[in-house]
């Protein structure tokens, strides 16, 4: 009857956690503090101001085996300001990231870049001689793919948000 001592090692998996907290910076610091002090990892985090409602929604993407994710969820829940913690991974949810990409765009390259932009349903938001700034939203893979496509032209600057996510209420297609 030798039961498992070490928790069963399950596969590492990416998880998206949606956390509702009462709006204050102390809460945000505590959340980040849990990750650094307990040795959990944050792949991305986004914090939306919710001053009016007094609540804010934080989306955290992280990874780990089941036991680690369970500890993360429990530890987050233990923070007094945390109202709810939802692990969206096993539910259907909508998720978006935003990236702003400034690329080199010589006269000859410009139309090709704009074509790529169109295919990805991204938007050019600034044009200046030799440069284009493009806004793109979508899931992480789509943004990675877009960046991969424009990289050869020369990326001057890149800014990416973490992902923001909400549980999907309607499971049909939209």
């Amino acid at each position, binding site marked *: 009857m030798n039961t498992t001592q070490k928790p069963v090692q399950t596969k590492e998996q990416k998880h998206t956690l949606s956390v509702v907290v009462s709006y204050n910076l102390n809460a945000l610091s505590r959340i980040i503090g849990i990750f650094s*002090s307990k040795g959990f990892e944050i792949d991305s985090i986004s914090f939306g101001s919710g001053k009016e409602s007094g609540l804010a929604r934080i989306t955290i993407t992280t990874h780990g085996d089941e036991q680690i994710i369970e500890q993360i969820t429990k530890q987050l829940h233990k923070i007094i300001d945390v109202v709810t913690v939802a692990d969206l991974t096993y539910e259907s949810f909508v998720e978006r990231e935003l990236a702003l990409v400034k690329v080199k765009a010589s006269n000859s390259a410009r139309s090709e870049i704009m074509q790529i932009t169109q295919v990805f349903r991204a938007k050019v938001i600034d044009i200046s001689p030799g440069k284009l700034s493009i806004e793109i939203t979508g899931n992480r893979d789509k943004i990675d793919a877009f960046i991969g496509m424009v990289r050869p032209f020369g990326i001057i600057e890149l800014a990416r948000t973490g992902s923001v996510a909400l549980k999907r209420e309607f499971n049909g297609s939209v």
Partner: protein
Amino acid sequence: MDNAKAHKLKKNKKKEPPEDSGPSVLNGAGILINTLQDLEVDTIFGYPGGAVLPLYDKLFDNHDINHVLVRHEQAGTHAADGYARVTGKPGVVLATSGPGGTNTVTGIATAAMDSIPLVVFTGQVPTDLIGNDAFQEADIVGITRPITKHNYLVDDVNDLEQVIRKAFHVATSGRPGPVLVDLPKDMLKTEGHYSGLRKVSIPSYSPTEKGHFSQIKKAAELLSDAEKPLIYAGGGVVLGKAWNELTAMAERHNIPVTTTLMGLGGFPEGKPQALGMLGMHGTYTANMATTECDVLLAVGARFDDRVTGNLEGFSPHSKKIHIDIDPTNIGKNVAVEVPIVGDVKQVLPEIDEKMETPNTDKWWQVLNQWQEDHPLKVPETEDTIKPQQMIEAISDATNGDAIVATDVGQHQMWTAQHYTFNHPRSFLSSGGLGTMGYGFPAAMGAAFAHPDRTVVCITGDGGFQMTPYELSTAVEHEIPLKIAIMNNQCLGMVRQWQELFYDERYSHSILKKGNPDFVKLAESYGAVGLRATTPKEMDDILQQAMEINDKPVVMDFHVEEHENCYPMVPAGAALNEMVLEDK
């Protein structure tokens, strides 16, 4: 031996309701005092400074709250911790901004690791100076974030009353812990509303107290069918006031009980079911029982590495049931079959009721044999004092009825092994953080809470030297505290590790050359100092000390310097690989 006579301090007389119990307008300091009185706070351990002067001004003519001026904020925090451990009420600390606050950090971390309810008030520079590196400014909310259960910076005087009430609620409910409230000076001076309303609302906070029905049923079934059951009781039994429930269950079903360091006193050691402490310096029987049992019921314990030893070898044959109010404790270090989140005081009787008494006759034969073959040894000598002998003598002199605080080291482990603890809330020790300098101030805090009980601090010559200045406070308040220094002229536990694991290279662990004359040290503060170097003198000075009831006594016991603490599970080894004595 007589209990020490109650010493003179403002007795905790029946509280008058605060002057204005209805809604009223007061300055922040007034709101704070009113709220504390309404929360029945009778004792505060504090130290003044510029940022909290408005509050000290209010304390000048307040005669209901007993403010104890300690000599260092670290000791003040330990004292409040000791007060909390013996009463179950939150300990309250008051410190000024900057260095006052940072001095509380060790005390807060100590309380956090052991889940002790504390409310720490710190002064802060006025709101408009925060962030300017003003004189005596420190971001104490930021500094203490990882070591508090929660903390607050008050930035609106009208929130002050609710914040204080929330702080006390959070500190004492669920898994208890320290809460810090930072008070900018202007918040204490400006006027705001005091409502007197006791309702506290924190929508995001509601600890689970009731255990899950089907899990409780599973636990009861496992225990009923067990052949070799064992209860492993931790500090949660003491903190959760579940000692009667635990004792009832263990007695009715004749199940053996081993306690952690923090659980000592949670199960009376005089009972036949008691196997003593488990873990690194646990008894042979307790550690073997943990290794061999088939069902392990962990109650308010957190599987600390000092308890489990090597995780791979920890209780390898057992199904585990774990009751804890803090869900993060469950499954953190060791996988369990039956997790039960809930209040141990509520859950234990439910399991007890649903289970049938397992047949443990064979199991007890094995346990009894172990106990007979490997009892804890107390070496007896004529001319020199063995440390174990010293602890036994103190246990005898106090009938096992004293409140005992320790520091950290060999003396702490020997106390855990050889003092017979029969009462809950009577053993104070820094189990989680392992803080040297904790024992004496914590004992003092306990003495303020229980002036009628004998309070003993057992400490090392190293540990005592971290907070000896509190003799000044103890003398001022005529506290008849007994301080027993196990003087082995070295940092004993460090020396033991160096002897066993570092080829006897005693790097910076010998205190002999610089140790003070502890008798003179005591006398210089106005306390009594006594010394013993033989067992005969030991008994004599213990008797003398027990008769003193108006001042602290420092007993300097010169013990054998090279004694080592056994059994010992070397770090990284499994519990059944313990070493029983010197090779």
